[in-house]
């Protein structure tokens, strides 16, 4: 429970940490688009290089990224099995009795795997080097233009920051309820399916009940202090883009353009 790495902020002092959070978010979007360009394995070279530089500049160790990717392996395994059964085109690779595995099944899975790995590394890079509060501030700023068309940017930012704030609380709460139910004989590891369903239920119901209670209390506390969702809010911390942020954005843009180039050219 404590060991999950996806989305966790790691306080270090590195170049990646110092970039403007807005620049980082935009850069992430650019690279995501680049990943989804159908420009074959060739197009990934540029993305791969820039990600390597990013990891180096973040001072995070590789093990951290490896941990973030672990939950994905199960999904990839399932995908591989499905592809092996469904995709029946390309060169046959191997035939076992009368079942044939085709090249395209493997290459398609590999392709998805590469995309997923790249995406996870990029998002991990962003969340590990940016404080959750900075992320929400940046999102709020980036969503500002959408306010013209009636998009509730302030409210969304507030919702995100509250959600982030309560993740550790929820984890703590879950652990407490797990302990309480364990001492009532709930066994989360073993047992038949029916017992397992019951065990999960005995965690989820109390968790929901206390979350609703907490939400209500928080809402009351905010209103009691005069919070009105739609009013404009000022803030203490102002973000400012500097030279290095623009350089980073330019490099990411270049990567995106190069993948587009490869796509058209090939």
């Amino acid at each position, binding site marked *: 429970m404590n060991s999950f790495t996806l989305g966790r902020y790691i306080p270090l002092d590195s170049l990646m940490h110092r970039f403007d959070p807005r620049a980082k978010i935009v850069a992430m979007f650019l690279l995501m688009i680049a990943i989804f360009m159908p420009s074959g394995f060739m197009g990934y070279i540029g993305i791969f290089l820039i990600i390597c530089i990013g990891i180096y500049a973040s001072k995070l160790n590789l093990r951290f990224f490896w941990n973030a990717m672990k939950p994905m392996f199960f999904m990839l395994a399932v995908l591989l099995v499905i592809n092996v059964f469904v995709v029946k085109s390309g060169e046959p690779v191997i035939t076992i009795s009368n079942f044939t595995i085709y090249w395209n099944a493997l290459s398609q899975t590999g392709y998805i795997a590469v995309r997923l790995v790249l995406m996870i590394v990029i998002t991990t890079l962003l969340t590990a080097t940016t404080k959750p509060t900075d992320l929400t501030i940046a999102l709020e700023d980036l969503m500002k233009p959408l306010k013209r068309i009636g998009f509730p940017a302030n409210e969304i930012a507030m919702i995100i920051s509250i959600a982030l704030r309560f993740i550790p609380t929820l984890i703590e709460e879950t652990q407490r309820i797990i302990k309480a139910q*364990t001492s*009532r*004989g709930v066994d989360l590891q073993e047992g038949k399916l029916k017992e397992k369903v019951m065990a999960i239920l005995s965690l989820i119901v*109390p968790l929901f009940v206390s979350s609703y209670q907490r939400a209500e209390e928080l809402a009351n506390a905010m209103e009691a202090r005069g919070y009105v969702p739609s009013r404009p809010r000022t803030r203490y911390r102002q973000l400012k883009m500097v030279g290095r942020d623009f350089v980073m954005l330019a490099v990411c843009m270049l990567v995106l353009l190069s993948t587009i180039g490869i796509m058209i050219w090939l």
Partner: protein
Amino acid sequence: MPIEIRNLSHAYHADTSLAKTAIHDISLHIGDGEMCALIGETGSGKSTLVQHLNALLLPSEGELEINGKCIYAHVKNTGLKALRKEVGLVFQFPEYQLFEETILKDIAFGPKNFGVEAEEAEAIAREMIQIVGLDESYLEKSPFECSGGEKRRIAIAGILAMNPNVLVFDEPTAGLDPKGAKDMMELFRKLNKEYHKTVILVSHDMEHVMNYCDRVLVMSDGHIIKDCPVKEFFRSSDLLRKLNINPPQILLLKDMCAERGIHIREDVFTIEECVADIVKEVKNHE
């Protein structure tokens, strides 16, 4: 079934940079049918210690022996579920563990997990709801439409239903009104005296400790710094002050009397006896 703790230490987040030793080298014997209070300031390690008693936490160093079942550090312990049936642990704010649609089902949940047949578990639930001082009409209600104090009782009934021999309560009266808290303490006394359960009570309320418990364990910074009978512990307020504990009212009264030259016997702990002593002293004086 005595509880034997030998050189127990526990570190949270062991093997990481956040490692923190919450209890150090604790050795302790608690005999059958004792009613023990565990006190100590916030963060002194009380909850950490009691969670070892039913193996929710496992020792980092040292070992425990409960009813002949041993739990060691550094090895994979098995059969923990059997131990959890022997030691019922009631957490602070246990009402958060309620989840079934009806109170009947919620109380029967524990016994069923330990292999009791559904019908028998419900019969147990009917019995337990009365022990905790609610009537049978509650059984068909949803636990979520009860008041905080009622929920607390229901949660305790849920633990009692497993019929553990040792009952551990972690601050069971926090957030209850004085009457509710007193009822709760009476219940624990009943469980101890009539049902012969070993009761371990974590509490911040010295009045409760003094009036209901037989033995006091004081924790500070992960160590047990005092272990003595309740009578000895509350003999004078000096010891309490030294341990940074607010003495109960009766001790303050005795102190005030002493200042005015009225002598009250050391083993007087109730207000009636105290008044009797004062009257006697005053009469002597005249």
